[in-house]
């Protein structure tokens, strides 16, 4: 009983983690940017969906759509406000761009977070779920929404796989993550690839944020922990490796769920953090990372 409970809950949580971390790692792989406003974009999309579905009463489907659009808009805003000016700046030395982008995206994330807190308060918000009711599998009563979350996450990840491996645009994105100079020499504009990547990222982060809002609820306080968990999953899996992030998401998700059920919810994040420290010491490039 408990076993099935952990299996099902862990699967849904992990799928959500995986979706959140995929976009994050894609951006890093292609443009070397660690986007610390990640959590804020997820929460922003969820709050937009919540406000549209709940407050304006447009229904869960239109609400979710508005949320995804909000995620997309926020991702582009992040790129144009906090990332691109620094990448193109002549006043900042190349070696220091990394820390400047980290600081700028961090500040941008705080700005989004505070704007949400100001206009929509700090209260936790639960997005109107698209699928309602509960269902019993293996004697475990689970909200149907939980299955829905896992399914959507994997559909989105599958679509991403198709995009990257089966379309011309996706292939050039993949190529850019391997060798940006080579792609430029083939006559593909690197800046348009960046735009594509940020668009994909916005969609993924938006969907992940809305699903999170339906599943667990979000508030402006969840911004920091969301960024931190995406960051740790991505590093655990190996920066830039999408498959590594997927596996790491499941490791972290199950470790957290098992700890919460078997020991105590208070210790929820500790084993995952310990694992991360051990991996950092023994295999600094992450489980599947390239150096």
């Amino acid at each position, binding site marked *: 009983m408990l076993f099935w409970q952990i299996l099902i809950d862990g699967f849904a949580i992990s799928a959500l983690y995986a979706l959140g971390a995929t976009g994050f790692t894609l951006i890093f792989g292609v443009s070397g940017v*660690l986007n610390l406003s990640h959590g804020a974009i997820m929460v922003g999309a969820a709050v937009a969906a919540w406000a549209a579905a709940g407050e304006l009463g447009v229904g869960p489907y239109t609400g979710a759509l508005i949320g995804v659009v909000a995620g997309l808009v926020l991702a582009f805003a992040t790129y144009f*406000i*906090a990332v691109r*000016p*620094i990448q193109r*700046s002549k*006043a*900042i030395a190349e*070696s*220091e761009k*990394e*820390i*400047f982008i*980290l*600081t*700028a995206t*961090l*500040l*941008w994330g*705080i*700005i989004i977070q*505070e*704007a949400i*807190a*100001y206009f929509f308060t700090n209260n936790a918000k639960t997005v109107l779920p698209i699928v309602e009711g509960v269902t019993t599998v293996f004697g475990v009563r689970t909200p149907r929404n939980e299955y829905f979350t896992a399914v959507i996450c994997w559909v989105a990840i599958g679509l991403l796989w198709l995009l990257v491996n089966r379309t011309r645009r996706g292939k050039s994105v993949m190529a850019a993550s391997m060798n940006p100079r080579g792609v430029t020499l083939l006559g593909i504009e690197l800046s348009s690839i960046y735009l594509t990547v940020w668009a994909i990222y916005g969609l993924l982060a938006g969907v992940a944020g809305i699903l999170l809002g339906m599943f667990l609820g979000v508030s402006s306080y969840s911004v*920091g922990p969301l960024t*931190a968990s995406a*960051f*740790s999953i991505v*590093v655990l899996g190996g*920066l830039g490796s999408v498959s590594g992030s997927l596996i790491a998401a499941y490791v972290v998700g199950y470790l957290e769920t098992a700890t919460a059920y078997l020991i105590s919810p*208070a*210790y929820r*994040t*500790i084993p995952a*953090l*310990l694992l*991360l*420290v051990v991996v*950092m*010491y023994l295999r*600094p*490039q*992450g489980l599947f990372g390239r150096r």
Partner: protein
Amino acid sequence: MPAFVSSRLFWIGVLTVIVALVLPTYVSGYVLGLLTVAYYTAVFAMSWDLLFGFAGEVNFGPTFLIGVGAYTAGILDANFSPGLSIWLCIAAGALAAVVGGVVLALPALRVSGPYFGLTTLVAVLMLQNFIVVAAGLTGGEIGLAVPDVISIDAKTNYWIALAFMLVSGAILFGLSRSAIGLILQASGQDKIQAGALGFNVTKHKLAAFVVSAFFSGLAGALMVFYMGTASVSTFVDVGVGVQIIIAAVLGGRRTVIGAAIGAIFLIGMGELLRPLGELATLIVSVIALVVILFFPDGFLGIIRGGAKA
């Protein structure tokens, strides 16, 4: 050095110190209390700048060192209060932070860039979890009340914080301008070349961690006995670390003094804008973002640019 003494920056500095010295006669205890916190935060930011600006280590966890110092001092005092002088507690706090700094330096010598950044972030999260879980010892989420304080007089506290900031600032600044600072800067920018020139990169980086940890821990411990309480939200939370990083980059990285200016500015602005409620943090963040995007050398860069023209 003479060129430095005659520069406009130096005289602005002297003027600022004089203003800070005569301030207690004119302003209220409330403002003094605010400045006391700002001065301790300035030391946090300066210590961080030594690690990042000079050794090139992206440390996301300045609050790990601060928290270890603050909580060690606080726990010792809470358990052995009358028998143990608070100054011994503070010394123990600084010492514990140095040990923490060495522990933090170990991965830094192996991994670099974002990987090291994450290791330091994890260190903070672990410390935070430990404090919450070991609530019996640390006071948990509510915070740890310490029975002693340095002084209840706002002016005395202000003088101590000011003197502490000036002394640590002078030491850190002197260190950054010395040969050691140059070697650190070289190893931060090109580790291999610095090693090839015959400098012991590992030793210097370790030293930078120890010095940074010492001042962070000392400042943390002193602040505990100013506030009379140690809590996760004031000493350990990732948000506190973020503020320190923003302060250092905002004031002007690789300057040490800029970090102090940034810290005092952030705390001052936060207070000035308090009437605006939740908008305060928003506005401060917007200002910080604008400065970082348009004046990457921070406030000190703006002043220097003005001096050149």
